[in-house]
C-alpha cells in the first residue's frame, strides 16, 4: 500500500471537548433547565457548563455551519456539539455569554429552545431531496410542521417531552417506529411491472423471494419474455421488491401519501419503550406545505396539551385516557385499516372486558 490513509476511524472526541467538560468529565452532579433552550450542568466541583440549544433544519450548508463556528469562537472557546435530534448545542462555562450569544443567534434567524417540555426538532430522512424510494419529501414536511409548532419549540408548553419523527418510506430510516408523533410516507398502490428488459436489471428468483407476503410470481409476456406478475390483493406496498428490482416502480403520485402515528417512545422512564401506532392511515401528498398533515399533527398536539399530565408522554396519556377517547378527542376516524392484520396481530386485539363507554 502507498501513503493513502485508510481505516483511521473518527477523530478523538477528547480533542473536541471544552475545558470545563474535560475538568468535570464523568463528575456532573445535577442539571437545571434555566429557560427554554438553556440548561446548566453543575459538577461536583461546583463548575458550571451552560448549554444553549439551537434548532436546525439538519440540512445545513457550510455557510450556516461556519456561522455557528463563529459563534463558538466568540462565546464558547471554540467548541460546540450537535444533539441526537440534530439540534446545535453551544457550550460555555461563562454565564455572561449566554444572553448576547442567544441574541446574535436569534437575530440570524435561528430559534433557541427544544429543551425539557418543549417540542424538539423532528428526526427525519432524505425524501425527494436524495432518496429513490421516497413516497414524500421529509424536509418539506418537517419545515411545514415545525413552522406550525414553532412556539412549542421555544417554550415549555407541553406536558412532557414530545418527540416527533418523519420518514419518507416504510424503511423508516430514523425514529418513526418509536416516536410520540410520527409522519410516515407510504405507497398505496402495488408496483407496476415494467417488463421491458426486466431480466437485464433484476434477478427473478431474488425478487420473488424479496416479497414478504408472497405476492410475486414469475410470468411470461405476450411476446414470450420472462417477467413478473404481482397479485395485487396480496400486496401491502412495502417496496421490498422495488429495492430488489428497479423495474417494479412503486412511486405513484395519486396514491403516495402520508400516514400519521402516535404513542411510541424509547426512554424507559415510567413505561417501557413502545412502538408507535397508526392513527391516520392516509393523507394525500400536498406539497409544498402539506396543510392536512400540519393540521393533523396540530390536532394531536392540542389534545396532548389539554389532557396530558406532567411527565406523561403521549403513550402514557393514551394509556390513561384510552384509545377510544383519543380518537374521539382528535376526531380521527377508526377504520378496519387501523386493526393490525400482520404477524403478531392477535396480541393487539382487546382480549378483555376493559372497556370505556
Amino acid at each position, binding site marked *: 500500500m502507498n501513503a493513502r490513509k485508510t481505516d*483511521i*476511524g*473518527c477523530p478523538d*472526541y477528547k480533542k473536541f471537548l471544552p475545558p470545563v*467538560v474535560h475538568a468535570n468529565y464523568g463528575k456532573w452532579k445535577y442539571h437545571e433547565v434555566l429557560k427554554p433552550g438553556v440548561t446548566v450542568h453543575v459538577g461536583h466541583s461546583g463548575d458550571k457548563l451552560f448549554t444553549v440549544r439551537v434548532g436546525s433544519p439538519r440540512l445545513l450548508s457550510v455557510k450556516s455551519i461556519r456561522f455557528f463556528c463563529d459563534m463558538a469562537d466568540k462565546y464558547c472557546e471554540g467548541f460546540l456539539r450537535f444533539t441526537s435530534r440534530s439540534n446545535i448545542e453551544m457550550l460555555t462555562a461563562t454565564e455572561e455569554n449566554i444572553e448576547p450569544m442567544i441574541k446574535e443567534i436569534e437575530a440570524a434567524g435561528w430559534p433557541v429552545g427544544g429543551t425539557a417540555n418543549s417540542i424538539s426538532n423532528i428526526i427525519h430522512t432524505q425524501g425527494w431531496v436524495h432518496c429513490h424510494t421516497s413516497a414524500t419529501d421529509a424536509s418539506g414536511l418537517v419545515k411545514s410542521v415545525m413552522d406550525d409548532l414553532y412556539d412549542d419549540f421555544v417554550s415549555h408548553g407541553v406536558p412532557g417531552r414530545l418527540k416527533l419523527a418523519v420518514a419518507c418510506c416504510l424503511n423508516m430510516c430514523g425514529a418513526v417506529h418509536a416516536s410520540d408523533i410520527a409522519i410516515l410516507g407510504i405507497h398505496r398502490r402495488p408496483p407496476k411491472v415494467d417488463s421491458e428488459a426486466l431480466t437485464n436489471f433484476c434477478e427473478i428468483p431474488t425478487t420473488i423471494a424479496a416479497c414478504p407476503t408472497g405476492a410475486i410470481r414469475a410470468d411470461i409476456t405476450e411476446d414470450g419474455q420472462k417477467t413478473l406478475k404481482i397479485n395485487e390483493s396480496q400486496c401491502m406496498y412495502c417496496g421490498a421488491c422495488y429495492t430488489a428490482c428497479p423495474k417494479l416502480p412503486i412511486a405513484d403520485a395519486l396514491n403516495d401519501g402520508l400516514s400519521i402515528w402516535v404513542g411510541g417512545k424509547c426512554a424507559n422512564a*415510567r413505561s417501557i419503550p413502545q412502538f408507535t401506532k397508526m392513527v391516520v392511515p392516509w393523507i394525500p401528498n400536498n406539497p409544498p406545505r402539506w396543510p392536512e398533515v400540519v393540521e393533523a399533527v396540530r390536532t394531536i398536539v392540542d389534545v396532548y396539551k389539554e389532557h396530558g399530565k406532567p411527565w406523561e408522554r403521549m403513550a402514557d396519556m393514551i394509556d390513561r385516557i384510552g384509545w377510544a377517547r383519543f380518537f374521539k378527542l382528535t376526531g380521527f376516524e377508526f377504520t378496519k385499516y387501523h386493526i393490525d392484520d400482520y404477524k403478531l396481530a392477535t396480541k393487539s386485539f382487546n382480549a378483555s372486558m376493559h372497556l370505556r363507554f
Partner: protein
Amino acid sequence: MAESETPLLDELLKGKWPSFIKEMKDMADTKPMVRDVLRQLEQSYRDKKTHWKHGGIVGVKGYGGGIIGRYSDSPEKFPGAAHFHTVRVNQPAGWFYSSEALRELCDIFEKYGSGLTNMHGSTGDIILLGTTTDELEPIFSALTEKGWDLGGSGSALRTPSCCVGPARCEWAMFDCLDVCHELTHFYQDEIHRPAFPYKFKIKVSGCPNDCVSAIARSDFSIIGTWKDDIIIDQEEMRKYHAEGKDILRSAVMLCPTRAIEWDGENIEIDNENCVRCMQCINAFPKGLAPGNVRGATILLGSKAPIVQGALFSSVLIPFMEIEEGYAEIKDVLERVWDVWDDHGENKERIGELVERMGKGEFLEQVGIEPDVQMVCHPRENPYVFYDEYLEEED
C-alpha cells in the same frame, strides 16, 4: 437563482423555522449542481414523486461502503444532478466539535462537493449531501488528511453512536463516548468492508433514558444501569418539596412498580422492586441519583419494520461491569457475529435471526446462560422442543 424557477419550494422559505431551502439556495449561487438539484426537487414537488434512481455501486478504493450512490432519473433535464452521491463521514463520539475541525470539514465539502450537509444522518454520520463519482477519491484523501474517515453502509457494521454521556450528563453510568470511540476504532474493518449478512448497528446510551434510542435503533444496544440502591439526599428532597415541587405526582404515583413512599419528610425506596426506570431520578436530579454499582445492559436486535415488523432490542446480558478496553463487550459482540455468520440468511438482521432460531437456542449458540430478566414472562404455550428424551436403557 431566479425565484421563478422554484415557486413551490419558495413557499418553504416562509415561516419561522429555519428553512432547508434557504440552505440549498445559499449554495446554489456558487454550486450549479445544487441549482439543478433544486430544480429537480421543484419537479418532485410538482409531480409528487421522487426523481432519483436506484443507486449504483460507487465507492472509494479498498472500502465497500461509506458512499451512497445516487443518480437523477432525468440527467438531461438536470445535468448538475446527474450524480449526487452521499459521503458518510464518521462523526466524533458524542458529536462534539471544535470550530477549527468543523471549518476544515466545511472547506473540504465546499471544494469537492455541494457544500450541503446533514448534521447528522440518522445513524449518526456527518453527511456530505452530494458529490460526483470523480470527486470521491479526492474527497476521501482530503478527509483522511485532516483525520476524518468514512462511516458504514451496506451489509457492514454501521457507524456506532452514543449520547453525550459523561461529557455533560450526571447520569452516565459509564464512559459511553469512550466505548463508542473504541468500538469504532477496533472494528474499522467491519465498518469499511461489508462482510455481514446485513447491516449491524451499535448505539450506546449512558442510562435508561436512552437519549440515542439505542433500544429502538441498534442491533446491539449498550445502555447504562446500576445494581445497588438509589442514592437519596433527603435534604434536597425536602427542599424540592418546600419549593412546591410535587413529589407525589412526579415520582410516587409515576413509579411503575409503586416502589416509592413519601411522607412529606422522607422519601423511601423499595430498591428490590425498583426497575431502574429513571423517572424519580429524572424528576429530582438533586435529591436522587443512581447507585454506585454501575454498568450496562446489553440488548440485541432492534430494527425498523422491513419486512417482518419492527423490533426493539431485548435483553441479552442483564448487567455487565464496564472495564477499560471493553474486552467483555467485544467478546460478546464477536460471539454474536459468529452465530450470525453461521446461521444468518442474506438480509436477515440479527433480531430476525433470534426470532427465527428461538432465543433459547440462540443463547446456547452464543454461550450465554438464560436469565429470567431476558423475558417479560416465561412461555405461555406448552410447545417446548427438548434436546433429548430418556430411553429405556437410561
